């Protein structure tokens, strides 16, 4: 049981800086997920916490103890690797008992603790098997078991589900969440899968290019993304973006020559003419009669998913002069709505569902 604190953590490989100063405090028992595209530095950050990478600058403390100069074994953490990293020449039991044996735990206690973890993970029947005789999901469980038996201060997960097939991934995701809840162990989890991130996390760290773009609860990140990157990365299908500006009257919003106008009061009123990047999620648009429409969409492709229908198209005036469409705009409709390609759809934005960003800095200005 422990809290983890990162203060100004940076990582450099020679001249290249890959992590640009991360500050975050993880409370005891909290489940924090680091999510970001590949190469954003999320695994490097986790490996710095584990002690597998040196910390170039800043400090990391676990349970109030600065661990910068401690070996991995002295940090009281357990890690689950993407490829499980099970010792292939040892049985499941020996894999799970390895750390305890090294720590000099009495034999009876080792058997007791491994047995308890095996029961928890339904591995009892497999204890004498070698890793190669196990399925992917079972290997994953053994890797979890190896982490659990040591009863560490914190669990570190490095994309533990990405080697599993889609169905098993959903199942293991639930198991991990349940297990973490039962054990109440502080956990740091790295993934590139935003669905995994949203479902598992108490709090998310959205990383991009070595920077933490936003650190907040999943719903906070979803409803109030701090930057264009976060807005586009979290949520599936991704948020739509449109260039726009504050109209000359200062009280409404113009999207490309006035297709859509909203007459509500703007937090940024008075900044008439200011250029904006407007984001709206596919699920926050509803089909309405033409007279009530905020914007129109020329449909080009319709995907029916059963419960939902995804309609992809372009706004009439985002077609550039040469006729090519620049941006695909996506709407999520209830499965009951019948639409087809070639139609023009009149849409209305749900109240409070517009996200305004500064087009230059990418930072959030306001939600509307």
């Amino acid at each position, binding site marked *: 049981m422990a809290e983890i604190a990162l203060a100004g953590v940076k990582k450099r490989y020679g001249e290249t800086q890959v992590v640009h100063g991360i500050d975050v405090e993880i409370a005891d028992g909290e489940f924090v997920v680091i999510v970001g595209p590949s190469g954003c530095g999320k695994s490097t950050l986790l490996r710095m916490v584990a*002690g597998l990478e040196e910390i170039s600058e800043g400090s990391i403390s676990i349970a109030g103890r600065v661990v910068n100069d401690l070996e991995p*074994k002295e940090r009281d953490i357990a890690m689950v*690797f993407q490829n499980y990293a099970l*010792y292939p*020449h040892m049985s499941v039991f020996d894999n799970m008992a390895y750390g305890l044996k090294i720590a000099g735990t009495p034999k009876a206690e080792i058997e007791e603790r491994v047995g308890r973890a095996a029961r928890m993970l339904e591995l009892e029947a497999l204890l004498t098997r070698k890793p190669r005789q196990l399925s992917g999901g079972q290997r994953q469980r053994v890797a979890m078991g190896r982490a659990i038996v*040591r009863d560490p201060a914190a669990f570190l997960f490095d994309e533990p589900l990405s080697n599993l097939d889609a169905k098993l991934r959903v199942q293991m995701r639930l198991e991990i969440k349940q297990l973490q809840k039962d054990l109440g162990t502080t956990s740091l989890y790295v993934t590139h899968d935003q669905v995994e991130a949203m479902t598992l996390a108490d709090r998310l760290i959205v990383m991009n290019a070595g920077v933490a773009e936003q650190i907040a609860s999943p719903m906070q990140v979803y409803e109030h993304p701090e930057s264009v990157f976060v807005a586009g990365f979290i949520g599936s299908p991704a948020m739509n973006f449109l260039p726009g500006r504050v109209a000359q009257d200062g009280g409404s919003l113009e999207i490309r020559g006035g297709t859509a106008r909203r007459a509500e009061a703007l937090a940024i009123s008075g900044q008439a003419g200011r250029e904006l990047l407007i984001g709206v999620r596919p699920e926050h648009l509803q089909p309405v009669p033409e007279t009530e429409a905020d914007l129109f969409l020329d449909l080009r492709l319709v995907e029916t998913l059963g419960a939902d229908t995804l309609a992809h198209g372009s706004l009439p005036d985002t077609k550039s002069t040469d006729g090519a469409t620049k941006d695909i705009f996506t709407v999520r409709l209830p499965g009951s709505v019948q639409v087809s390609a070639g139609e023009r759809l009149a849409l209305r934005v749900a109240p409070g569902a517009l996200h305004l960003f500064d087009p230059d800095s990418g930072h959030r200005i306001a939600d509307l």
Partner: protein
Amino acid sequence: MEKRVIFRHRTLPYLLVLPQLAITLIFFIWPATQALYQSVLRQDPFGLRTTFVGFQNFARLFADPLYLDSVKVTVVFSISVAALAMGLALLLAVMADRVIKGSTGYKTLLIWPYAVAPAIAGVLWWFLFNPTIGILAYALRAVGYDWNHFINGTDAMILIVIASAWKQVSYNFLFFLAGLQAVPRSLIEAAAIDGAGPARRFWTIIFPLLSPTTFFLLVVNVVYAFFDTFGVVHATTSGGPGQATTIMVYKVFNDGFIGLDLGSSAAQSVILMILVISLTLLQFRYIERKVQY
């Protein structure tokens, strides 16, 4: 993925394997049959008469204290060569695996001795250890050891072991390095997080994972010590002093070509042949079945 080539002509595939077949026949099958045939014959001292004696040559060998002594020498020699060559190679491979800067340079230099002919390697070490002019013998004398492989059997044995092992280190090094690089990094990291220090990680994780490589090399090194070291012995000690360094393959040569006892020499080479065949079989069976995880 299996690639099969279909030949239209019936004779072409046979023509293509013919050179290899010819080499095998002339340099292996023919001498081997000759040895088998000779091993059941005995010739008089002048080579005028040859008589069939059945397994008498073999029976005599196993009753001959000189031959049994040579077997003992061979066992000591091959175990020492294999242990020294593999131990050193593993040590070097572990160190080379850690080096990041200039690793290619180290690796290249470590591989070079393999290109040296056995006789040259022997002579090289013979000079280094020469009691009169050798720098190593000089150094040993300086620390109080009077090295002389001309009269001291143990010294002579150490000399040929060093010369033979030195050459084989390169070969073993290559395989050990490849084996080490095939051990997934995450396993070592997992062991580090589990609390294992470097030495413990090596003996409980890395070394067991290297066991297929180690076993393969053990067989290869023993076979090497049995057969390929003839040049080393011949160029340095000539089996002496006394019988101290007469390994079996050297005795085959000595009895056959110096002593001109063709029957006994042939019988000895048949014994060696049986040994190498069984070692090879052992390796195939064992490597494919037992040594895996």
